[in-house]
């Protein structure tokens, strides 16, 4: 099973890189760009035979994977002081 994790700076935190990208887009003529927020994207591949998720229905399996990857995001992939994240589980 595969999970996608999107990490972005919280709206309250100024994103200097995103700001520069937005300015560059405006320079290219994309005057309608109001704001850009830059973030990180992770593809996390999990072993299907994970004992924590074995012998479960698809939905329960999915929920379990989502909980595990959320834990990973919280512990390592994102810094909760400045970043927020979204986890998406693929089949």
């Amino acid at each position, binding site marked *: 099973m595969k999970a996608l994790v999107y990490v972005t*700076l919280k709206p309250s935190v100024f*994103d*200097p*890189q995103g700001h520069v990208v937005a300015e560059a887009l405006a320079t290219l003529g994309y005057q309608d760009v109001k704001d850009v927020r830059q973030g990180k994207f992770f593809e996390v591949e999990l072993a299907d035979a994970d004992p924590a998720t074995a012998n479960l229905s698809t939905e329960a399996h999915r929920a379990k994977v989502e909980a595990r990857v959320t834990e990973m995001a919280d512990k*390592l992939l994102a*810094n909760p*002081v*400045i970043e927020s994240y979204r986890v998406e589980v693929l089949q």
Partner: protein
Amino acid sequence: MKFSIVVFPGSNSDYDAFYAVSRVVGEQAELVWHKDTDLKGADAVILPGGFAHGDYLRTGAIARFSPIMAAVKSFADRGGPVLGICNGFQVLLEAGLLPGAMVRNDRVKFVSKIVPVRVEQTDTPFTAACASQQVLNLPIAHGEGNYYAPPDQLEALETNRQVIFRYTDPAGEVGADWNPNGSLNSIAGICNRQRNVVGLMPHPERASELALGSADGRIVLASAVKSVMEGVRLHA
């Protein structure tokens, strides 16, 4: 007195700190590999500058899992003086030994220059020999030194006098023009609630002799010597 200096893969100020402690301040210094699990009898610990573990993911994010960090945490919990310089500060933030986080510099540039830094509080092991509001000329060299803490945490830092160093003009006045990276409240360094763990972005160890452009940083290390000699020795 003995300083242990932690060496992560990618540390680059470890020898600067080693030199400043052993040759300039004249105290015992030992380099401790990040895979070690004890601090070799340290009275004070330095997490040096550099790019620990390549700063992959986020600055300091991987270094916090280095085996030595458990010993650093337990040393800090017992009141031992810990100094995080630049990347070492970022590691302390990621490890949760200091509050807040670092964001990319507001001007999106790596800044490398000597800047005035005002000592805000003298009741920490690394500022004990400083005069209150003393202005030190210290080099900075970082791309991510833009200090951030959520509003309630920032307020608590100020209320509890945990802001230890601030970027100012040469006369010691805070101003946006003298904030090199966009740090909230011009914060250059902070301490924990117990005041024994201090982190700062400027490099005092690289300003320990006049030949380096400034000798102002020596007092940060001399402070540790003063506070350890006058206080209770704590062997790690």
